[in-house]
């Protein structure tokens, strides 16, 4: 018995070491790194210091996507969309602290924050979806959803670090709902409704490298310095009136988070206070896929293990004299 235990433990330890080695120390060549920004990636830049909380973008988003507004149109800014939902792809939330007197200040201040799909460079939802119902466009990087493929497993909901995909729990024929960057408007020559309608230029649309350059320009300004800022889109030439630059926290949210996102954000209040998660630079999708690929690429590892198992089971089935009763007898 001691012998059997020793043998077994040795086997278990060996198996365990192999599994651990396979998982912990994949050859660098096999590790899947973060995905790269697609060549024609487009996205949004949201600058919390310019947002006045008018919620015009919330209404515009609903209109553009044919979503119901729960209160009469003239009072639409009171839409009780407290949170993203199957009928709200975009919301403006408020941060308040203490007396909430000064805008864009952490203490005794307040700020607004836009929440909608971040169009991650290396999205968890796309990696997780078992049936390619969530896809990332190879050129523009827009992450969109195809209900016809979806099996409703909600792994995308679980995998998104930002809590974006929303599911119809009370429908017999449910779907996932989320912002698809208004790519259905492109054929009419239009772009993201939320950016199009934003009166202050707090949300703008454009190619991601241009948005990033604009974000960096704003961060480099001295607070109070007057300048004009793009409005609606970096491509339309619309500008705001001259206004003073704000005091930003030294961080462009989305530049690196979780492998980067195509929606970038600037703010005067630290982003974790605004409800945005702290994420490492390495995308979780790349971690998950590294494990999967290390274990399953080309089915090499399973084939090797199966070979060993077959040898063992064959041997033990012969041991009893090869009668047909050998196996489960």
């Amino acid at each position: 018995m001691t012998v059997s235990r020793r043998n077994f433990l040795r086997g278990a330890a060996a198996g365990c070491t192999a599994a651990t080695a396979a998982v912990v120390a994949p050859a660098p060549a096999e590790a899947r790194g973060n995905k790269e920004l697609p060549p024609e990636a487009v996205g949004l830049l949201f600058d919390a210091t310019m947002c006045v909380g008018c919620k015009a973008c919330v209404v515009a988003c609903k209109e553009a996507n044919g979503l119901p507004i729960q209160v009469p149109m003239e009072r639409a800014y009171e839409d009780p969309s407290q949170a993203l939902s199957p009928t709200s792809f975009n919301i403006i939330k408020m941060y308040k602290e203490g007396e909430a007197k000064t805008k864009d200040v952490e203490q005794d201040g307040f700020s607004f924050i836009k929440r909608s799909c971040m169009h991650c460079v290396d999205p968890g939802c796309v990696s997780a979806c078992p049936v390619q119902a969530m896809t990332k466009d190879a050129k523009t990087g827009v992450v969109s959803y195809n209900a016809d493929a979806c099996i409703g497993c909600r792994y995308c909901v679980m995998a998104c670090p930002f809590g974006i995909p929303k599911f119809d729990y009370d429908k017999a024929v449910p779907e996932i709902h989320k912002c698809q960057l208004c790519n259905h408007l492109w054929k009419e020559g239009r772009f993201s409704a939320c950016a199009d309608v934003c009166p202050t230029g707090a949300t703008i649309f454009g190619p991601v490298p241009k948005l990033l350059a604009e974000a960096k320009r704003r961060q480099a300004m001295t607070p109070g310095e007057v300048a004009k800022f793009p409005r609606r889109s970096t491509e339309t030439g619309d500008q705001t009136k001259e206004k003073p630059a704000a005091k930003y926290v030294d961080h462009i949210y989305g530049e690196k988070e979780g492998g980067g996102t195509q929606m970038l954000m600037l703010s005067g209040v630290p982003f974790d206070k605004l409800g945005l998660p702290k994420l490492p630079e390495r995308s979780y999708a790349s971690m998950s896929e590294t494990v999967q690929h290390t274990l399953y690429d080309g089915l090499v590892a399973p084939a090797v293990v199966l070979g060993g198992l077959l040898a063992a089971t064959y041997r033990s089935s012969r041991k009893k004299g090869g009668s047909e009763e050998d196996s489960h007898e």
Partner: protein
Amino acid sequence: MSNYESAGGRLVTPVTLFLGALVAIAGYFVLMRFLFGIGAETPFGAVTNLNDGYSWGIWVVYDVVIGTGLACGGYALALLVYVFNKGEYHPLVRPALLASVFGYTLGGVAVMVDLGRWWNFWHILTPGYANPNSVMFEVAVCIALYIHVLWLEFSPTMFERWGWSNAARRVNKVMWVLVALGCLFPMMHQSSLGSLLIVMGAKVDPRWHTMLLPALFLLSAISMGFAVVMFEATLSADGFRRPRETPMLKKLAVVLSGILAVYLGLRFADLGWRGQIPALFQGDFLARMFWLEIALFALPILLFSRAAWRGSPQVLFAGSVSMLLAASLYRVDGFLVAMTPNGDAFHYFPSVPELMVTIGMIAFEVLAYIVLARVLPVMHGHAPVHGASKAAAVPAGD
């Protein structure tokens, strides 16, 4: 002829009727779910309390993630008997296999109940739709294949009952291939069930989120397999009034302790490596859950540490229960308790209908196990203790 026999006894008893009633209640709520959606209101509360923060509830975490772990008895024993060549455990194989067939098949059924767009299920197995980067793809394909392997492994038992000895012989000829596949597939998907959490990243507390999740899930699944064999062997010895398999279970207890020691060693080494040890002493709720888990994992090692203790059926039973609770809690913690969704304040606790569906699934499993063990030759042939004829055997639960 085989040296297995059925347990015998009456099929309709108060116990089986009660189980049948639970199954019927679950059936009603499953019907509501298909008619109105997985979160629809019923007169008894919402079908489930799932929300976009906790989009996977007990139907996934218990019915699939824990349920298939509990169904690892067949796998764990096959490893021991056929791979590590310990033929003496053979008498435990068939009952364990029966439980595995049911556990996995019902896990598959539970998935269909949980899937929002279940009619598209075949997409996951179809090239063009399937996404091999997805952990869930691996889990689904592997479990689907394994369910087939399990039924084939179990089929000679049914063929014997129906007198199809040719068919039984033919399957037994290739049994060694089936057994090898039956060892491979659980290795793959039981580890992947842990990998499902990797992409969820920061939402899972770092005390649970690690790249070693697949190894930890696999080890704990194997120990669940052994524990469930001990648990069932003790229960069915009492329930069906059959002799206990204590000497064998005693040895199994030693094997189980060994695996648990490896599991605990790996888990603490990983926590140390990632600098999470101080977080274990933070005294927060999650830290307490962590230590509860560890205590439950360690208790069987302690209980089985002395030969005299291991000889007692009560100790074996207690140790196996502790182990099953440990691994179940590990899974519940990873998927639900240690999970903090981003965004709005989400809460999840299963609704009454949701619980009733899961309870109904368990009831169905137990019911089917009782019925099949009474009619199919799954029990190892001993001289029955309480008289030789089936008629004299007393049904369980009377």
